[in-house]
């Protein structure tokens, strides 16, 4: 019973990680860059929800606004900071992404201050089946993230744009010759990634309602770890990695002796997996072309 409880909690936390990890992995697959500012989109979504919730009091409207705002922000960041560097060394792009992440954090600190702000979007309460009681938001998070993941998979598999995305990630040059507009695909990728991050931010806020300017760093780094464990660039890999990491985290936290080492254990698993299978669990080996 206890184990089942931990498992469900882990899956629901993992669902959040998976949503964020999808953003990392899709951007990596298509734009070939590690977008370190991705985690901070979660933070931005939290503050947008805060603003809209205090303005309108309507949670759904606030969530919708945060998704729209984050999509715009993601696209603007891509256009302003990353697009000029297309073709430059990956290192330069990586450092720019870190700079953008810092920029977002210090902007948030300027506007909202460093003090924590609690946002309770909605109190769902809990349900019990016999002796087994669980929070509704945990189930909701799990359910919603699974729905999003399935629909994203379907979108990539069957829609025109989705297949174009696959083509670009496979071979950008060839895709371009086939008439795919690479710039448009990259913009769409950033938009989808940011929307997922905003959604993840909403669920994360349900779990951890204390907002501060570094709110996104931890889930960002964890989700990034999840994406690498699953195989960066691989969509199913990100989902699998996210869920796995969520379960590991909750299992570790449930054992008092292991609990202080939770972060270290997660990162150690990352290193071990890279040691055994450098491309991640579901990642494909990529041949380097000369």
């Amino acid at each position: 019973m206890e184990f089942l409880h931990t498992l469900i909690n882990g899956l629901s936390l993992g669902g959040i990680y998976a949503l964020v990890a999808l953003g990392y992995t899709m951007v990596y697959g298509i734009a070939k860059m590690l977008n370190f500012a991705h985690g901070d989109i979660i933070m931005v979504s939290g503050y947008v929800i805060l603003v809209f919730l205090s303005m309108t009091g309507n949670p759904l409207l606030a969530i919708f606004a945060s998704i729209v705002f984050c999509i715009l922000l993601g696209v603007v960041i891509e256009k302003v900071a990353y697009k000029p560097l297309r073709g430059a060394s990956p290192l330069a792009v990586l450092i720019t992404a870190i700079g953008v992440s810092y920029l977002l954090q210090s902007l948030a600190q300027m506007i909202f201050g460093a003090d924590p702000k609690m946002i309770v979007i909605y109190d769902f309460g809990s349900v019990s089946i016999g002796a087994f009681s669980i929070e509704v938001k945990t189930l909701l998070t799990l359910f919603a993230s699974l729905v999003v993941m399935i629909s994203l998979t379907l979108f990539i598999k069957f829609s025109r744009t989705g297949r174009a995305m696959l083509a670009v990630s496979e071979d950008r040059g060839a895709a371009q010759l086939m008439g795919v507009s690479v710039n448009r695909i990259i913009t769409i990728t950033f938009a989808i990634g940011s929307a997922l991050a905003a959604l993840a931010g909403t669920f994360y806020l349900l779990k951890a309602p204390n907002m501060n300017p570094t709110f996104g760093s931890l889930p960002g780094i964890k989700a990034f770890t999840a994406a690498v464990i699953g195989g960066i660039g691989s969509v199913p890999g990100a989902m699998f990695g996210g869920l796995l990491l969520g379960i590991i985290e909750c299992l570790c936290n449930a054992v008092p002796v292991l609990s202080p080492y939770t972060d270290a254990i997660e990162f150690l698993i990352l290193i071990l997996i890279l040691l055994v299978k450098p491309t991640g669990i579901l990642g494909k080996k990529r041949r380097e072309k000369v």
Partner: protein
Amino acid sequence: MTRATSTAAKRQIKWKYIANYLVIGVLTLLFGGLSLAGQLGQSTVYLLEKMSISVILAVSLCLVVGFMGELSLGHAGFMCVGAYLGGKVAALLSDLLGSGNNVLALLASLLVGGLCAAVCGFLIGLPALRLRGDYLAIVTLAFGEIVRVIFQNTSLESFGGTLGMKTPRFNRNYLFLFGFLLVLATLAVIQNFLRSKHGRAVTAIRDNEIAARATGINVTKYKLIGFVLSAFFAGIAGVLYSYSNYQVESSKFGYNYSIEILVMVVLGGMGSINGSIIAAVLITYLNTRLATVLTGNLAVLQNLVYALVLVGIVIYNNAPALKSFRERVNLKALLSKLKKPVQDPAVIREDAAAWDRIPTKIDMDDLLTVELQQKKAAPADADSDGEANSDAASDETADRKKDET
């Protein structure tokens, strides 16, 4: 190439090569003299200690980021290993000798701290550097966090846990002199490494790994040598840190500190040792001095400005679209226009022997563009869409250039 130009170039190189030693040496003597004469205030002395630590960190990270073209996000982690293990040795020796002010004990703990960090660098680098791509960034990030968590959960007697570990503080009037000497030692080792065969191999790998591999360079080996060297000096900086504080506490060495060091290297121009030194000194000064001046929102503004400058500089230095602009508006270009209107390509190649003339990626791109422009009146600036082609083209030219040299 005539003999005359070659020797002239060589003489020039020598000057460039020792210039930074001279400057730091003179500063060491100057501040040493002031300190002996009792003219240096405590806060200045502490600032100088901090600066020397930052410079060692920045120069050693510059080796990885600037010259190897790999990203390390766990430099503070290596520093942490050095600070704790070197600091532990220092504490044990000072218990044994009755005082922390023993130069031999300092050297011993520097050695232990540096070596421990180097071993960690080896263990981390071995799996990560076999792979291409951004794996080193990921693994070092993980390493930094793991180290922090491990030291936080140690017992009170061993490494102090969350309370931190007590370390002996070296005589505060003289520690910064050791810091300066260590800066000189770091420069000597890293600059000589870069000028050696190994260093050339490392930069060759950065510029084109496949080409380097094809010429028979053992890519993993050379990357690993560079990375271990960098970790060693991060460890040294850690030991220096433990000597300059009474307390070493692992939460200091988190991700944010690693980023701060990275910012120094990037602001320094990413491929320039002297740039890193200047940026490290400047940022340390600003961080320390502004902290006493700026409060509230102004202090946040400082972070905002750092972030903006970071993004701005990277985009300016690397954006393909700004290449022609960079060529026109650039200190080096302006200077060379003043001195000698046309630079003999032979001199450039000869110059490459100097450590700071090892062309960075940016330089190399510039050279290639010039060449392309000369050859076929330069294709319109490569938009992202044409990137694959232009990349391939530049790879080709890079290879050809290697053959020529």
